[in-house]
């Protein structure tokens, strides 16, 4: 119909050109490219753990999201002078805390508080020692902009990483295109952190009745004392009831500190901090909101000797002469038990 032996040469050429163009545009049509498969990672929820924070549902960890989050977590370009990444203070072998009393940022700047560990955060309802953040995705911006930590800005970070082909690839695989936005950065870091679940300590194995795993005599004694004197606050599978309490620890002289009181404005929250999880406590010395205690022994000595009085001192102390009485033997057994909360596979990244 279109082409016969009588078709003019030019008409043929033109049709050929049009056909080629049509074919070319078809091959560039992105709807023909396969969609990258980015499966969700099923989080293994340990037995008896509390429910997930509802923001996990809105940001379920995916294969590439977690990979991307881990890469961002370890990237020193997040800091103004490219010396500090999240991993600089959140060190795996310390259960993603560190061994400094107060966190140290760029140029040796000393921060307000002790670095919290990153473990089982998917099951927490509050983040930071004062519970200032309720969504894990809202936390990463804080150290990025804080003068004593990374002293940068999210746009400064994006500027540094956006032409990195590895990031372009991971953002595309995770989110469908190469666009690097603040929200995508926070979400992928949170996805990575949600996967950091620790529930494989000796204690866990004993509770699961695993073959050949038993408490020693000391550990068993320690567990009994723990259940008598500690469990009311350090309760449940997370070893924290996630409440905020003033337990009369030595006070941070920095007047920026007011505990949860600076978030809520409630007098009863003054110098109240979230009950810390005792999981992996062996790895996260020093202890206290600003690292007041070098060792677990020092903490237990302090409880026994008596804590600082305050109007809002927690009843556990206020109603008991400001102390938790512990004999030297009690303390030895307790520390033996607390060490059973160490999850070697977690800190080794197995």
């Amino acid at each position: 119909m279109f082409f016969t032996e009588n078709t003019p040469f030019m008409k043929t050429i033109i049709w050929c050109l049009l056909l080629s163009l049509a074919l070319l545009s078809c091959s560039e049509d992105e709807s023909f490219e396969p969609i990258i498969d980015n499966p969700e990672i099923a989080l293994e929820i340990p037995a008896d753990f509390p429910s997930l924070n509802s923001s996990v549902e809105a940001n379920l960890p995916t294969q590439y999201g977690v990979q991307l989050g881990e890469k961002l977590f370890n990237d020193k370009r997040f800091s103004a002078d490219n010396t500090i990444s999240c991993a600089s203070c959140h060190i795996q072998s310390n259960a993603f805390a560190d061994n400094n009393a107060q966190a140290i940022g760029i140029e040796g700047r000393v921060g307000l508080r002790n670095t919290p560990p990153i473990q089982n955060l998917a099951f927490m309802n509050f983040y930071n020692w004062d519970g200032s953040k309720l969504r894990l995705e809202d936390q990463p911006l804080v150290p990025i902009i804080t003068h004593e930590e990374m002293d940068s800005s999210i746009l400064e970070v994006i500027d540094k990483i956006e032409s990195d082909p590895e990031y372009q690839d991971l953002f595309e695989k995770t989110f469908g295109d190469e666009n690097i936005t603040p929200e995508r950065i926070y979400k992928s870091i949170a996805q990575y952190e949600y996967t950091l679940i620790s529930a494989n300590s000796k204690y866990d194995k004993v509770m699961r009745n695993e073959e050949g795993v038993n408490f020693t005599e000391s550990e068993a004694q320690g567990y009994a004392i723990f259940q008598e004197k500690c469990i009311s606050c350090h309760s449940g599978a997370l070893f924290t009831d996630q409440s905020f309490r003033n337990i009369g620890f030595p006070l941070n002289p920095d007047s920026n500190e007011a505990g949860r009181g600076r978030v809520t404005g409630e007098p009863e929250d003054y110098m109240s901090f979230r009950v810390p999880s005792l999981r992996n406590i062996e790895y996260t010395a020093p202890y206290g909101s600003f690292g007041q205690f070098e060792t677990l022994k020092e903490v237990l000595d302090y409880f026994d000797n008596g804590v600082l009085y305050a109007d809002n001192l927690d009843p556990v102390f206020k109603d008991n002469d400001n102390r938790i009485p512990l004999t030297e033997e009690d303390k030895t057994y307790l520390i033996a038990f607390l060490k059973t909360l160490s999850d070697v596979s977690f800190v080794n990244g197995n």
Partner: protein
Amino acid sequence: MKYLKIYFLAITALLAFTSCSSDDDDAVANDVTLTFSNTFGDTPIVLGDATSAEATVNTSDAGQVHHFSEVKYVISNIRLVKADGTEIPYNINDLDNGATVINQANPETLSYVLNDIPVGDYAQLKFGLGVRSDLNTLDQVSFPSFYALAGANDTEMMWEWGTGYRFTKIEGFYDTDNKEMSIHTGSTITDAPDGGFTQGVDAYRDITLDLPDVAVVGNHAPTINIKADFDMLLSGNAHTITLSTGTSMSDNATPNIHTADQMVKFVDNLGGDGTNDLQGMFSILSVEN
């Protein structure tokens, strides 16, 4: 016929001149300038360091002398209200184009021009002291200019741990031995992800000021002169505040406000309590048409 032509020419010329004149009533919008005078009572604040002889000294109702080395605050969410009640919002969801940091040390910042205000007679001015909580997220992508303005070293108006802006930043000295005072206010209000609960305090305050004279936007661009009387910081409608240095729960002066409980008292004094007092330290000095 000849005269008709002349008349036509004359009328045409007249019309031409009339329409070309800038004095016609066809303006649809004009500027409104807001000026902020930061005072102790009726005395303009002169800033100074601890031992400054020039700094303006004020005495609070509690009897404490004090002077300032720094005064900064955020104004946003500006709305002008016409005599007939129509409310004209000024870029109220855009911190880059609708918010500013008033900085006593920088005279340029004491004037803020509102562009393209529709012609009309305005009887009321409303604005926010601070940033509304829905905008208080340090969104550097949406509002890069305001982020730079509020985060730059010389303003330090970012509240880092709260990932929001500092609404006011007042540094100074009190008592005869010049103890440091440092009053920062900001919001910590946060909702749980499932909406289950809300925590924190909202330090944003809405201010409503009746204009003593109508501000006429039309041929001319009016100026509204506002007074921010910082005597009210310590001697406010809401609270009489005594500054004290220390780290206990009732200490409030040094070197930073650390409990939102104490901070809220300063917020109520400066910005009103949000219900009965919608003025705080602000009042209209004059309207210039």
